[in-house]
């Protein structure tokens, strides 16, 4: 165990160094793209806690990102709060919304959560347009611009902190309860783990991450409107999650890179190609490689050991 901890720490430090020096070697435009990768990474970390570690799936994480994004945007635009301070608040508001939402949605099986979160993602733009007084309706809210390098460091320092926090949470008894519920609900219940409590908690934590990611989206695009968080965002997050690997927090980086860069490259084929490719990748990964990139890594590793 201590050897694994040492390896993980070494990996984290090396990765942090690479992330820290990267902007020196890439253009400012690419720095913004990589800042987005950091943002998707944060969202995927949260989704991974929910799906990879506690066995539930959310199809509406875009909506919880939207809650975080709008929280930040409203605080910045209407109340003049400094951008950075709105980030934790956005996380808490989205996390609170997640807890409140998980309570009814998780009374039965995880399927109901998937179904209810899908409904949230579809209905959210209507709500954002309805409360025009706060959200600016279709016109949205305009925020202050920042330099790309600043956004890059902001999103990656939060991503790093989010990764550490995720590891920490999953190492506690709470994390063990999540895994126990995922692997055998019956056995978990007989050991005194309350499924409703821990599933709702997992959803709350994961919405907290989504809220923070949404806040970062708002800050980095300096603009939010109902189209900033479309249903396709929620769905692509699931693709990124599966590609990165369910139950591997660092693997989510691979998923985040895919979400950011695939549309750009696939659009060369055709405007509609990205979506077809994303769908085909998700189907292919679930059929052939359910462990995603992290699973592939483990497979290579175990085949090298005699």
């Amino acid at each position, binding site marked *: 165990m201590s050897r694994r901890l040492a390896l993980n720490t070494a990996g984290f430090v090396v990765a942090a160094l690479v992330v820290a020096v990267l902007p020196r070697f890439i253009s400012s435009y690419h720095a913004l793209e990589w800042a987005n990768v950091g943002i998707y990474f944060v969202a995927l970390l949260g989704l991974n806690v929910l799906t990879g570690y506690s066995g539930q799936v959310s199809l509406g994480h875009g909506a919880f990102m939207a809650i975080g994004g709008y929280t930040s945007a409203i605080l910045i635009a209407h109340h003049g709060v400094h951008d950075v301070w709105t980030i934790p608040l956005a996380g808490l508001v989205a996390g609170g919304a997640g807890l409140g939402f998980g309570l009814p949605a998780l009374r*039965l099986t995880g399927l109901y959560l998937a179904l209810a979160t899908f409904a949230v993602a579809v209905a959210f733009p209507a709500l954002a347009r309805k409360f025009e007084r706060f959200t600016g309706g279709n016109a949205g809210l305009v925020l202050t611009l920042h330099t790309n390098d600043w956004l890059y460091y902001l999103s990656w320092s939060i991503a790093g902190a989010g990764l550490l926090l995720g590891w920490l949470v999953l190492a506690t008894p709470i994390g063990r309860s999540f895994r126990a519920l995922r692997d055998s609900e019956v056995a978990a219940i007989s050991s005194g783990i309350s499924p409703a409590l821990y599933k709702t908690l997992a959803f709350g934590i994961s919405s907290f991450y989504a809220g923070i990611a949404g806040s970062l989206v708002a800050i980095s695009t300096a603009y939010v409107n109902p189209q900033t968080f479309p249903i396709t965002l929620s769905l692509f997050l699931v693709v990124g999650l599966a590609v990165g690997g369910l139950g591997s927090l660092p693997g989510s980086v691979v998923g985040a890179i895919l979400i950011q860069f695939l549309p750009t490259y696939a659009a060369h084929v055709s405007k*509609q190609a990205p979506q*077809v490719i994303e769908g085909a990748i*998700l189907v292919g990964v679930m059929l052939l490689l359910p462990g995603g990139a992290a699973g592939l890594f483990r497979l290579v590793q175990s085949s090298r050991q005699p």
Partner: protein
Amino acid sequence: MAQFWQQVVSGLASGGIYASLALALVIVYRSSGVINFAQGEMATFATFLAWTFLHHGISFWPAFALTLAVAFAGGVALERVVIRPVEGRPVLTVVILTIGLLILINGATQWIWGGAVRKFPSPFSTRPIHVGSAAFSIQDIGIVGVCLVAVALLTLFFRFTKLGLGLRAAAVNPEESRLVGVRVGWMLALGWGLSAALGAVSGMMVAPVVFLDPNMMQGILLYAFAAAVLGGLESPVGAVVGGLALGVLLNLLGTYFSTFGGEMRLVGGLAVILAVLLIRPTGLFGRTAVRRV
């Protein structure tokens, strides 16, 4: 009062559409314990096929029947090719797979037919018929009729044919059905085929009303979820009753409370899902699952 009855009838028309898609979801759910998130997109794809048939000069009802046949075959093929390999894997895997199908089929529809909104012809006239002071549209009544006939035919099939019996047996107890000679794997595929055909019915009925576009079924899928949850996810009767009740409820809400008009109807559907889960999570006709530990 005339307005009330008009709204009830047009609510039943939307309700019939929700009911067909909800029933499609329930058939798949009963046979494999999975919600097929691609059900709506499969219906959209089928409706675009129907549009193509109509575009090539086939008249409405032959095109309708042809679409149902293609949708059925497509559903069976999808189950055989994509779902069968993951049979027995965790539900989560299968659910994520159907999300992949949702993205894939939606993208394919946009790729093939483009994102433009199209007019889809209605087989029924939109002329109103007058009963007392109320005016009902023939189209609304026709939609309810087609959806109910589809549901009734399916019920007859499940009740009175040997194949229907096999399907029900495979859903209730796959192990023992296999022992008495039911080919459970094919029954699952058949369930997917029937669901796809039923979804196509709802797609072709809704397209004249909302116009045909690649995302047309997203909202309808939300209502179908709400209908299925309201009726109880494993109850076919519940899906139909839930769908019709939901259609009427949302119509009346939209008429008498302006908050729930227009786009906010979606929020009404969401509210119904959450309310049912809070108050009676098993729905109107669902039974509490009892597990043996």
